[in-house]
């Protein structure tokens, strides 16, 4: 078992934002976490990589490959972050340092964890750019983030997260900030790379159709709790919790609306 979360509870003062959450994930498997904003899905994903803010009170246990992440020292966590666990963020613009060339940013985890020198890390960064489907990687690695489009930046984010071939990739709403057309390309790319690397995937989103296209299992979160944990198929055919049923209904409804629009156009 790669990830084992037991009774994870996160509090800010007296406010409980993640309430007694438990789930597990085997190596190479994919888990979706779905819920509306404020449901605790992002904090749950941050707990997996040990990046919760200092102000949070955390109880329970998060085991990554048998190692306890809760209460681990910064040094222990730094050794795992970017090395065994990679993370892709929601906002591709703000997640990159505006004053550093992207090649250097992709190279940093390689220099930290693999001990590569400047040249070697840049060469690897160029390779990674090509792998995430960026055209003209030689030029891209010399660019600053603001010179790239949103989709390109998110590919850079993916290249950084996957630089050290992590065993777990966490993607927190990686396509929410992108155009629908770009969204599809980036999702396909994430799916493809995760398969090639054999990494496990935790995919966080508020969008049920997106989550179901990316993962085998889905955890539905509502008000800090996992209200349902099921296979994607099972969730669509017979969701047990009222909130999951609503999500499925809404997804179906928008599908039908779209279908209606298309037929309306044909007439």
């Amino acid at each position, binding site marked *: 078992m790669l990830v084992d979360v037991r009774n994870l509870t996160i509090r800010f003062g007296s406010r409980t934002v993640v309430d007694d959450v438990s789930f597990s994930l085997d190596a190479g498997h994919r888990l979706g976490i779905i819920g509306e904003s404020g449901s605790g899905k992002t904090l749950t994903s941050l707990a997996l*990589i040990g*990046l919760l803010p*200092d102000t949070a009170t955390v109880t329970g246990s998060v085991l990554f490959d048998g190692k306890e992440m809760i209460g681990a020292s*910064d*040094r222990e966590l*730094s*050794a*795992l*972050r*970017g*090395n065994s*666990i*990679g*993370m892709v*963020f929601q*906002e591709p613009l*703000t*997640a*990159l*340092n*505006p*004053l*550093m060339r992207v090649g250097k940013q992709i190279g*940093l*985890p390689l220099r*930290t*964890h693999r001990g590569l020198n400047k040249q070697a890390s840049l060469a690897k960064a160029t390779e990674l750019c090509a792998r995430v489907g960026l*055209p003209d990687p030689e030029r891209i690695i010399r660019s600053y983030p*603001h*010179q*790239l*489009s949103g*989709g390109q930046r998110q590919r850079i*984010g993916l290249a*950084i*997260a996957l*630089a050290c071939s992590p065993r777990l990739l966490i993607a927190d709403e990686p396509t929410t900030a992108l155009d629908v*057309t770009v969204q599809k*390309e980036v999702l396909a790319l994430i799916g493809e790379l995760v398969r090639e690397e054999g990494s496990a995937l935790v995919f966080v989103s508020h969008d049920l159709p997106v989550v179901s296209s990316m993962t085998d299992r889905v955890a539905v979160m509502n008000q800090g709790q996992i209200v349902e944990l099921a296979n994607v198929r099972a969730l669509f055919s017979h969701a047990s919790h009222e909130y999951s049923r609503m999500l499925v209904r809404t997804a179906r409804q928008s599908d039908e609306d779209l279908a209606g629009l298309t037929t309306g156009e044909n007439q």
Partner: protein
Amino acid sequence: MKFNRTLIIGVSFVGFSCFLALLSLVWTPFDPLEINPDISLARPSAVHWLGTDENGRDILSNIIVGSRATLLTGVLSVAICMLVGVTVGVATAISPRWVESPAVFGIDIVLALPTVLFAIVLAAVYGPSTLTAIVAIGIALSASVAQVTRREVNVVLLADYVTAARSSGSGTWRIVRKHVLPNIRSSLFVQASGACAIAILAESTLSYLGLGTTPPAPSWGRMMASLQQFLLIDPIFPLWPGLAIVITVLGFNLLGDGLREALDPTLRASEETAVDDELRSASSTGTTNAGSH
């Protein structure tokens, strides 16, 4: 970096003062210390361009040599205040709360002390000298530098790219070096330039009060103090050192403003992206077409 008018004026004013200081090392029209009672309080003339003071010393020569003390104070006290201020500011921002709160309280106390009062105390203990003035001004300014730096660092530490850097395994020290310092760099330049203006003004004030540069070394502040007595004879006497102070201080202030404009990444980014957007939309249609076939 794009040059703007403010920056150019600032640089030329500061450059003028620096030129005077360098010139004083090799040449002055007269010996600035040579006393000649026969020509005391001479008006500007072809021989003495800016006239002479009550002891018949050439004012122009004294102003040229006086720029040394002024610039030396500016540069050294800024070096002190940036070194101490940035170190303290960064350290308090990244330290845990039980260290940060008392440190911030300490900074507030130093901030509350008037620079001149602090310098008077220091001068009373160690005797007035350029060095005393430099140390007093440097320490007093480092408090405000520390405060601004701490605020800037805290903003950068909340940025997504710092979280992203953490998520790829960067430790605190590496984050400070690679992400925080480069991103507050422009603010540091502006602060240094502003601090230099304040330091020069403070040095003139202290010398005026007799607590800074000691005689016989010429200093603009002390020249102001002695020449203002003759204000009623002719206001032109105290005009010259006053003008020198104003030009230098204004120069550093304009330099700071100009740097702020030239280094601001958002201003810079908006100019470049305007062009880039067009290029990008052209190239992205190219790639989508290529992808769909």
